[in-house]
């Protein structure tokens, strides 16, 4: 401490140090400029733009000139007939996706990890990544095609004695098609992070377990799974944090008026009200409400996980 004080006779103020740093690293700061401008315009300006949620925003008056209406849009949404429906649908679809979709890539990774033949292993991996690269438009277009009463799903369903129905137009099957197709698309891609973690597991752990007489299944339970627990925890917190942020894109492509009762979620509702019907303030209010709920959920999930499992995002 004393020696430091001798080298630097007087501690510089923060402003002084900043000025020196800006001069010394001016090229580095210059390189940051495009990134800074990008984040300010496309991330931070919209964050300030949410004030329109508290205004009666009129495009010709602009953000500064529009009238302030307080929480009008929030109360209108929360007391209106649609809040319950879209929040319920978002939660059901999300929870359904998490319950079935979260374990799927883990199971796939465990199975791939047990394959001995490298060529077979690689082929399975390549094939399982494929759906991730097929565009959502194509996937949804094919889902419409396959779900129609003459489509592939009905051909298969009929072989099992199911009646012919349009799976996407029927309120009882819409969510299953939505969730299962999502798992089909992302299962292989999602397994990468688990496979990457497993490739770093020390093989001597398996040998030791085998010498102790553990069979294949017991080695999976006692060696492979424990190695995955930290990654699984972090992935689960992130997934739970997104429970209310189901994106609008797939819903917009799959739903139609006949299934709104089960298919309309918060983000598709925001899109319809805010952009299609040009009710910008209302849409922004619903979006902001949803963002805040998300932040709260993520914080709670992160806190719980830090207390329970000692793993957290921050």
């Amino acid at each position, binding site marked *: 401490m004393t020696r430091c004080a001798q080298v630097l006779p007087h501690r510089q103020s923060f402003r002084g*140090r900043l000025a020196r*740093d800006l001069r010394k*690293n001016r*090229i*580095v*700061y210059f*390189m*940051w400029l*495009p*990134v*800074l401008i*990008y*984040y300010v*315009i496309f991330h931070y*300006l*919209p964050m300030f*733009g949410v004030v*329109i949620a508290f205004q009666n925003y009129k495009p010709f008056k602009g953000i500064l000139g529009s009238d302030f209406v307080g929480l009008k849009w929030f109360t209108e949404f929360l007391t209106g007939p649609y809040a319950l429906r879209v929040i319920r649908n978002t939660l059901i679809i999300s929870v359904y996706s998490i319950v079935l979709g979260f374990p799927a890539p883990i199971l796939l990774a465990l199975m791939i990890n*047990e*394959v*001995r033949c490298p060529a*077979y292993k690689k*082929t*399975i991996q390549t*094939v*399982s*990544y*494929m*759906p991730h*690269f*097929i*565009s*959502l438009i*194509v996937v*949804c*277009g*094919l889902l*419409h095609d396959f779900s129609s009463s*003459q489509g592939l799903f009905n*051909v*298969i369903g009929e072989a099992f004695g199911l009646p012919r129905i349009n799976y996407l137009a029927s309120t009882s099957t819409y969510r299953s098609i939505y969730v299962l197709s999502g798992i*089909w698309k992302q299962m292989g891609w999602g397994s*990468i992070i688990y496979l*990457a973690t497993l490739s770093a597991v020390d093989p001597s752990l398996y*040998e030791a377990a*085998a010498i102790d007489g553990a*069979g*294949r299944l017991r080695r999976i339970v006692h060696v492979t799974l424990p190695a995955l627990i930290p990654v699984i925890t972090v992935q689960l917190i992130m997934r739970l944090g997104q429970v209310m942020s189901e994106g609008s*894109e797939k819903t917009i492509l799959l739903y*139609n*008026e006949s299934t709104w009762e089960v298919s309309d979620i918060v983000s598709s509702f*925001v899109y319809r009200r*805010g*952009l299609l019907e040009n009710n910008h303030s209302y*849409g*922004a209010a619903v*979006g*902001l409400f949803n*963002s805040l709920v*998300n932040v709260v959920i993520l914080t709670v999930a992160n806190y719980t996980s830090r207390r329970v499992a000692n793993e957290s995002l921050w």
Partner: protein
Amino acid sequence: MIEKRTWSSLLFDGLNALVLLALTLLFLYPMWYVLMGSFSDPFSLFVSNELLLLPKGFSLKGYEQVFQNPNILTGYKNTLFYVTVGTCANVLATSLGAYVLSRNGLLLKKCFTIMVVFTMYFSGGLIPTFLVVKNIGLFDSRLALILPTLVGTWNMIVMRTSFRALPASMEESARIDGANDLVILFRIVLPCAKATVAVIVLYYAVGYWNSWFNAMIYLQDKSKYPLQLFLREILLANTANGATSSGFEESDMLYLEDVVRYATVIVSTVPILCVYPFCQKYFMKGVMMGSVKE
């Protein structure tokens, strides 16, 4: 490890291989069905009602229609523009940002990092973003598909992690030789982090190839539409969501519809399915780097 060939172990391997085979078929079959459908005779396909293993009859009618459709050509051209220009711009901006975040001893680095990571957890939402893009004059401009998604935060963090893993000695010797930070980034850091750059290029390129939502909300002029928006019109034309004209002659469409749709899917999807297997070995590395915490 040399596994003892016990019966239970062999049984385990057999079952495992079988389940995985079933899954593989499940992943592949929809695309196989579409591929076979696209080469089928339109009328036999229209009246048939069964699983396809091979084309039903053979005809290239679907592909003929697809390549005569002017929209597909326009869409392809536009998409190629968005993919090339967009990917270059994104990779450039992302590597600049990643380089800055990988520097040591930068006074404002922590502040920059927080500023960037915060956007992963909170955003203004669809409507305010839309209004910003509109108000800065990007509405109905090709740039509206590139600038609002210029930097993927997660990609930038992946890149920063890989830059940080490079040995500091190379950079120091370059600095002694008088290289500044820009030279170091483009001549030393980027060439050394080739694997990561490849993954990021792939992520951005695939993202541009498949994106449609921004194009749908920001573009009005059809001559700027990317392929995916025309695909939407073709694939979802007879659902409540599709727009009206798909660019095909309506009178032919009745029984040609299926083949044309399948051929369109194949034409628009094959390029990307041919590329990704070559980058596959980098995927794991990329994912691991993104998961390293600050």
